[in-house]
């Protein structure tokens, strides 16, 4: 696949001929110098960025045959900057079910939400807490829990643990491990030292994606 981006107004091809394959349940760490296009690659995979050439296949079905919204329900990007919308923690966790794409689908119960919060060590933050009272680390964990609850087939994490303290980063890792056990393929852009979860490591540098020893 090939992708163009704009840098200082000029169009630059950041990578060309990049290809990768993800298996269910694996956790792939994506590393490489900043500016090499890791974020762009994740966005392309979630169809949140244009590409010049290349095809995406999901279980053998071409992206031409899947509408972008259905694609994103299955291939879920968790962006680098976590955000909450105005409302309570519960509102934020149930945000995906307020969208037309999931209208009428069963949403998680308060019990499930509370259990998940406890799992990421947010038990002291109630479901009724106003989202703008949360710290950066708490927002990141709420945003990840929100993605976790939608049970995607592919989860793309863009440095979600970058700004976190060790405890929050461990909680994030635990959530990822749990999803992978249930069959979700996870790709993590990370700058932290390896945490032993990854099954593979890929390096993106100077437009080339290569497999690296763990």
């Amino acid at each position, binding site marked *: 696949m090939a992708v163009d981006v704009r840098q200082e107004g000029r169009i630059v091809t950041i990578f060309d001929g990049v290809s990768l394959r993800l298996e269910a349940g694996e956790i792939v760490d994506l590393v490489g110098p900043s500016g090499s296009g890791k974020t762009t690659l994740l966005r392309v995979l979630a169809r*949140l960025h*244009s590409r010049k050439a290349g095809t995406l296949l999901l279980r053998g079905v071409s992206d031409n045959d899947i509408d*972008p*919204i259905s694609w*994103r329900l299955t291939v879920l990007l968790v*962006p680098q*900057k976590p*955000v909450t919308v105005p409302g309570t923690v519960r509102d934020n966790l149930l945000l995906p079910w307020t969208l037309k794409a999931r209208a009428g689908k069963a949403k998680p119960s308060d019990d499930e939400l509370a259990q998940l919060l406890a799992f990421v060590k947010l038990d002291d933050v109630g479901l009724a807490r106003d989202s703008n009272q949360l710290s950066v680390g708490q927002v990141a964990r709420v945003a990840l829990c929100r993605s976790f609850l939608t049970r995607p087939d592919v989860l793309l994490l863009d440095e979600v643990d970058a700004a976190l303290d060790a405890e929050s980063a461990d909680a994030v890792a635990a959530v990822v491990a749990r999803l992978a056990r249930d069959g979700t393929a996870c790709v993590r852009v990370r700058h932290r030292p390896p945490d032993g979860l990854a099954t593979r490591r890929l390096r993106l540098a100077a437009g080339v994606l290569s497999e690296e020893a763990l």
Partner: protein
Amino acid sequence: MGTMAGGVTSIGSGELVIAALLMLAVGFASYRMKLGMAKDIVASTIRLFLQLLALGFVLRWVFGNQTWWLVLLILLFMIASAAQIASTRVTKAPSGLEPAMFLSLFITGLTMTLAVTGLILRVQPWYGARVVIPIAGMILGNSMSAMAVALDRLFADMDSRVDEILALTALGATALEAAQPSIRSSIRAGLIPTLASMAAAGVVSIPGMMTGQILAGADPFGAAKYQIVVLLMISASTTVCNMLAVRLTYRKRFAPEGFFIEAGMRDPEEGRRRGFWRRFGKRSNSEA
């Protein structure tokens, strides 16, 4: 010289000259305070005279020779001018908004004008230029300003919500769902000035139209009722026009696949190509 008729002074050319002398005060201020605006003051004063006297002349002719197609043609010209002026006022927006602005003003201008003149003022014939053209002018002028505010707000607000929009689209939101909070805040922003002027009317300010009617000798109570209709009509028109304009344009900031086109993905030349009047303005600036 002016003549008195029913307590109303009609203005002759002598009175106009006296009024023009008022601008000497402005010129004196510019000279004493070194504002460097002498050229602008003279040019603006001359333009004011030429434009309004020409308008009066044209309207007098139109009122005397009105036909339904001539009135509609004038409305169309007013709508196109309003769309053009609005497009130069919207900065930081994607290019190619003009057709949507024209369409919003066209639909609002025609339906609201004909609704007010036909159903409330019951003008005979329906194209009676003496009423239809000033009413359309008020509707279009206010809708144009409100639309420029609303569109500016829409695109600025979406830019400030770039992270939230990405998070929402990543979760499967449609472009409309991701843009919705910005759409709401832009329509709110466009409505605030109108509601404020409704609240101030009669307490803080005597609205311009009512002032004009009273000066021209009309009964103040009748003028008040007229002004109420006008203010209600303006708030309805600005709201309808903003809703149309915002709904017709928000999608321009989203790619066909439904993701938001962030600042870094845009053509840096965007917006510079826009607007005949802007180009015209630039040229005259460089000559000065």
